[in-house]
């Protein structure tokens, strides 16, 4: 799937959609999960991202890579889902005041299914640091690409990366000490 391939499409093409999902489906789902930490929401976001891309192939003008184009859509969709989730929460809190102590099902899932302690630590970072870190480390975007995607200055990206790495070191150290104590 290259840029020209996609940009040449004027009409939606199911085959291209399939290839797009094969190539980027898991990446987009992961990105939504990094932002929302919620599986159901990530499913919905991934759906909306690819439907949106499918209906807007002709809007892709090769000014970014296909990956960053999809990430940008995913980011917008994710924020709107997060807003929606916030409002659901606000509304429910107002009406039924469900204060739930303890860990959520999502936290339990992450604890169980994360592939490593490093990923568990990443998911404990504040969302701004987490997002910047994964865009750099996992999606291998440059500082300039991240700045463009997040619409923030490059200096802010560097600062967030610095902050994310420092927090990660601290979390990983904490984890190592915890493990040592346990053993």
């Amino acid at each position, binding site marked *: 799937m290259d840029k020209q391939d996609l940009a040449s499409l004027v009409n939606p093409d199911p085959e291209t959609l399939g290839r797009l*999902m094969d190539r980027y489906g898991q990446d987009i*789902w992961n990105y939504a999960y990094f932002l929302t930490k919620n599986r159901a929401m990530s499913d919905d976001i991934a*759906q909306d991202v690819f439907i949106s891309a499918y209906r*807007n192939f002709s809007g892709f003008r090769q000014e970014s890579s296909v990956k960053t184009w999809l990430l940008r859509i995913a980011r917008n969709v994710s924020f709107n889902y997060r807003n929606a989730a916030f409002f659901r929460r606000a509304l*429910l809190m107002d009406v039924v005041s469900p204060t739930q102590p303890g860990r959520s099902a999502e936290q339990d899932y992450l604890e169980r*299914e994360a592939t490593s302690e490093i990923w568990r630590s990443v998911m404990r970072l504040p969302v701004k640091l987490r997002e910047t*870190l*994964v865009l750099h480390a996992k999606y*291998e975007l440059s500082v300039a690409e991240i700045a463009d995607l997040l619409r923030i200055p490059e200096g802010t990206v560097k600062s967030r990366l610095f902050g994310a790495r420092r927090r990660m070191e601290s979390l990983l150290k904490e984890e190592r000490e915890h493990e040592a104590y346990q053993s």
Partner: protein
Amino acid sequence: MKPINPEWYEALKGEPLRERTFTDALAASIQERAARPPVRGTASRRLAAAGLTAALAAASAICYDGLLDTSDRAGHDAAPVQAASADLIVGSSFQPLPYDDNRITVRFSQSITDDHLPAVEAPHNALLERQTEDRAKFEFWTVRKEDGSYVFGADYYVKENDAQDWQPRGTATFTEQADESSLSKGGLISHSLGYDDYTVFAGQVLDPNAETVRLTDRKGNRTEATIVRNADGRFWVAVVYGRPDGYTLQALDRDGEPLGSPVR
């Protein structure tokens, strides 16, 4: 000199979760949805979370919808902002929330999720222009429809690089359905739109005594909304940086006295 990445960086190139979460079933579902013509009007998706359903059932019935739509009118790779569409209907018909006359009602309308929003092409009634940065601004507008519903729109513009002209980057809208207005008597109707790093809170002001609408975040920072009237009615608009996760919404009368109880 390029900084050396820490050793744990390499582990982040792999997958975060053990299982593949973008499943074949999910891909098939997307293909199926893509094959259908775009839905005009209400897009609905039942929220599956059992806990949420139970909570909503306890709260009588709530119809909620997320918000956004966009049209990529910029000609750039602007990402279309899709509707965070989700409605949940408990029971066979809409029921009002338990209503307290002294409470500001925060509620949400159906949103249009079509890719080519008819209202965007319709004549707009300009509402307000708000410049968020030297090179970014929103223009807000409304369109009142024949059935009494209205569309609230936010056009987002930027000046790219050294350009002096504003370039449209997208349009976000929500639609307030007229037939649900009984839920909002005496209060405010609230929505949010997100674009770039900004969140727009907005809605119609239905209480004629409301002179100020104030948002307060968890740190106590206050944002006074702008109240503005056009031919479609009286609306409040607040633009805040980021995606605030928790705020209090309060309407005040002309003497600065709170109207009803704040909504968090």
